[in-house]
Each structure stands twice: as structure tokens, then as C-alpha cells.
């Protein structure tokens, strides 16, 4: 047996177990979440939202968000509008079935936290930053954020028109600790 095997194994186990303490705790998305968007004329929600949320209030830098929304789950409250929103004129759900966000960094701010990451939507990947808060509850907590994005940055719809270019996103995600 190589004389370095046991020392190397010990270092690996030690390092591995240390990382479990350093890694941010995971949170499970629970029922009652809301991912809604609104503009001057249109608004709706994405019903299907899933992903992994690693977040530690004391060490936000160690956190990581990797979430996915199913474009076909869009609900504006009107059947014709749903069909229109999923069409190639807007989100093109057949070609781009998911909206994917992966965080790169999370920092603490005066009013809460700020996450920066890549938003992959409608075939365009773009770095975005938005503020959010995390409120602890007895069973877990709630992530909440509200921010604007420009739909033209993601080639969604034609520039101008009746639907505003600035789209407001409101996120409210209750979670429980894994």
C-alpha cells in the first residue's frame, strides 16, 4: 500500500467534512410560491418553478440559486393571452421551454441581499442583478424580490407596441429547510 494513501484519504475526508460545514444550507421550495410578471398591458404568473436554493443569512457569499421556470406554465388568466404568450411572437415555449437562472454571487446590502447571475431566457443568456430579502419563519423562511427587466434584452416580443418594454417581476418563494 502506498504510504501516502492513508494520509491523503484523511486529508480528503477532513476537507470534505469541512466543506459540509462551509456550504450554505439548502432550502426546499414549498407550495404557495408566486413568480409573477406585469407590465402596462400584460401580466401573469409562471406556475411551475423549481430548483435548488442554497443560502445562509450569516454567509450569503456561500449561497447559490439555480432555478428553472417552465414557460408553458404561464398563466395570464385568459386562455387566448396564454396561447399568445407561449407563441413564437413572445416566449416561444416550443423552442425555449425553460427560463433558467443561475446565481454567481450573493452579497448583503443595507436592505437585504443582492444576487447576481445569468438569466437564460428565450435563447438569450444575460447577467442580471436584483435585490431580495429573506424572512425567517418558524418552519423555514420566505425569499422575496421585486425588480425590472427589459424584454427587448431577451428579444421577447417586438420593441414598442402595446405591451410595455419594462417588465416587473415579483418573486415570493416560501421555503423549508432541507
Amino acid at each position, binding site marked *: 500500500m502506498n504510504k501516502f494513501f492513508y494520509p491523503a484519504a484523511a486529508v480528503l475526508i477532513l476537507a470534505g467534512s469541512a466543506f459540509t460545514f462551509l456550504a450554505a444550507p439548502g432550502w426546499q421550495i414549498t407550495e404557495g410560491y408566486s413568480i409573477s410578471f406585469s407590465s402596462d398591458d400584460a401580466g401573469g*404568473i409562471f406556475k411551475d418553478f423549481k430548483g435548488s436554493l442554497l443560502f445562509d443569512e450569516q454567509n450569503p457569499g456561500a449561497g447559490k440559486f439555480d432555478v428553472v421556470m417552465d414557460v408553458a406554465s404561464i398563466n395570464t388568466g385568459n*386562455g387566448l393571452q396564454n396561447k399568445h404568450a407561449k407563441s413564437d411572437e413572445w416566449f416561444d415555449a416550443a423552442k425555449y421551454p425553460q427560463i433558467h437562472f443561475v446565481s454567481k454571487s450573493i452579497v448583503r446590502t443595507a436592505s437585504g441581499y443582492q444576487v447576481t447571475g445569468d438569466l437564460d431566457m428565450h435563447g438569450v443568456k444575460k447577467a442580471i442583478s436584483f435585490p431580495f430579502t429573506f424572512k425567517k419563519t418558524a418552519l423555514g423562511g420566505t425569499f422575496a424580490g421585486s425588480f425590472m427587466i427589459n424584454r427587448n434584452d431577451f428579444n421577447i416580443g417586438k420593441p414598442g407596441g402595446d405591451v410595455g418594454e419594462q417588465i416587473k417581476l415579483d418573486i415570493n418563494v416560501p421555503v423549508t429547510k432541507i
Partner: protein
Amino acid sequence: MMKKSLALGIISGLLAGIAGVIYARLYYSINEADFSPVVSTVKIITASLFGGVLAAIGYTLLDRWLKARGEIVFNLLFTLISFITLLGPIAVRLPRNIDTPELFPGMVIPMHFFPALAWFTLKPIFIKSK
């Protein structure tokens, strides 16, 4: 005339409401699309009753003003108005917790014709043609 047309309006409205409730239940069992938070049993019956009573008032007024032509104009208007009201369920935005808004017009559109259907069916019993 008002008494007869009002009786016709109330009875046809109620029957349209009952038909609407039965249709809503049937629609739910076939499509598993529950719109009861938006269109409750009470709302279906009161809306149908409203349509029936409105038809009774319209019929009486047109009968007085236009005499023999009143019925023809009324029938045309009742059908036309029933068609126009279809824009409502097509354009409505339901609460976003309702999962299948695309199935909503399919449930409500037939109901918009029930008051007219009940009126035209029961009219010979209440009011004899001139």
C-alpha cells in the same frame, strides 16, 4: 302583456339558470375544470334570471312601440345581444390561481344562449303569436 312577459322572463330565466348549473357540473366532470370560484351556482342562476327579466321588459316595450313588428325586432335583438355578450367570457381575465382559463369560454358561452333558448321555447305557452 307585462304580466305575461314577466312570468315568461322569470320562468325562462330560472330554467336557463338550472340548465346552466347542470351544464357547469357536466363540464366539470368531463374536463375537470372547476370554475366555481368565479362562476358559482348562485351567479349562474341570478345572471340567467337577470337575462330573462331584461328580456321581459324589452319584449313589453318593443311590443308597445312597434306593435306587430315588435316581436320580430325583439327576437333579432335578443339573439344579437346574446352574441355580443360572448365577448365578456372571451376577454375576461380570471384569477391566476385558476389553472385552465382557456377552458372558461367553453363553459360559459353556451350559457349565454340559455335564456334566449328558454324564452323562445316557452313563449308559445305564455304569449300567443299575433
